[in-house]
């Protein structure tokens, strides 16, 4: 299979993720990474599927690969933060989530994880701010979803 097929593989894998068919998604991500190991997006997306499958340590390794290829990959930072949170490593998780929201201020999930980690590390006031930002973005997404649903 040519490297040019990678975007198509990633799209199909993403479709499986949306359907919560993570095993199928993972097989396609593996294929995409084998074809193009230098594609940070492939590593980062595979990390997301692994988080859903509760393979957190592997997800962190995938995020690190993505970040080695592109240190400013916002989603990879966000996913790394989430995986670290699941492993109870709140301080590095907070650092990763903070980096994620610095690179992409519209990542509702990263703001939320940042909020939880701040709460866990005793910084309740800062956590409130992070939660408020996360909610604001989530509401915007929800309104968009609602419009799509009504449109359909």
């Amino acid at each position, binding site marked *: 299979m040519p490297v040019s097929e990678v975007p198509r593989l990633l799209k199909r894998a993403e479709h499986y993720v949306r359907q919560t068919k993570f095993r199928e998604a993972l097989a396609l991500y593996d294929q995409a990474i084998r074809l193009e190991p230098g594609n940070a997006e492939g590593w980062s997306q595979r990390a997301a599927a692994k988080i859903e499958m509760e393979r957190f340590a592997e997800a962190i390794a995938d995020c690190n690969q993505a970040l080695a290829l592109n240190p400013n990959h916002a989603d990879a930072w966000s996913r790394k933060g989430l995986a670290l949170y699941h492993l109870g490593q709140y301080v590095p998780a907070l650092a990763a989530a903070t980096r994620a929201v610095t690179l992409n201020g519209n990542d509702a999930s990263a703001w939320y994880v940042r909020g*939880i980690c701040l709460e866990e590390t005793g910084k309740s006031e800062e956590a409130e701010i992070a*939660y408020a930002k996360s*909610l604001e973005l989530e509401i915007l997404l929800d309104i968009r979803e609602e419009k799509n649903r009504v449109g359909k």
Partner: protein
Amino acid sequence: MKTNMPLTKPIRRFISETERILDTEITLLRKPEAPPGGTLLDIYTYNVDKSIILFPANYIGLLKDFVIAKQCTHLLIKGAAAKKSGYRILSYTPDSVYSGMRQVYLDALKDEAKKEKKLPVKKLIGMLFILYRQFHEDLNELPWNPIVNARIYHRMEQLRKTQLYILLKDGKQDMDEMTDMMDIVPRRYFVLDKSMFYARDLYLAKTLPSDKLMPVVNIPQMKKFDHLEVKEMLTTRWTHTAWYQSKVFGDAMLTIMEKHLSVDWNADSTLEYYACLYQVGVNLTNALLAYMTMKDWFIWENPQHLLAAQEQAATYEKAALKKIFGDLIEDS
């Protein structure tokens, strides 16, 4: 608790508390097709091994937390009832279906007599059971909504902004329901349906409190009644509209709600407290049924009774139609 998603501390605590009080395990599941308010598949209603809370896949932060808080509170109410006095919900029998459909038919006839453009008979017949079931569904859900929301408001401060957004959205959606059939549905039922939602929103606007939730502020069709003086309100122009009538009946229903919902929303979480909330919900439902003269429309039964009735719904409808119309109704 079984989940692989991040949760805030208060929500984790609340889930653990629910599991401890009910001595059960809760599973959280994200599903792309789940409705915005989430779904509760609980052991007290369905034949399932453990209770599952499903919520939309795009809810990743506090929106998800609110859905979980709402469904956990509802689970506590159901579970406490099941453990204490027995959990019952509104169900129906062939006789109660007949009572309800017959009443809708008589009211529809009164409406049709005044109409220039009559509703085709087939449409009218088809509408009877649809309306009956609509009220069944609404009355099994609506009275629990202010109870669950008032409890969450008082117990989970962190979720207040999220709760307000969801309630504003729900209020608009519930008021929108049926509006495309406004000219078909008998006025009485359109008004009663809207009145229930109006009263609920008004109750929550006062309880939370939030002026934004006032139906005359949040609901587009109701906005024209904001800042109107009593004299203006009583002009014929207004009194003949379904929305004005919904407001009048809704104000009366609010009094019923306030009378029945005088509860200590801050009380400690115990099985006894949630069993008491269940009784409050049952009493409120009965009061609303009495106010709407629908007392013989439904019966309180165990959830299995309703599941069986739902399977027989088409048969019940056919039998009721036969009883109302006799031989005018074909067997097919």
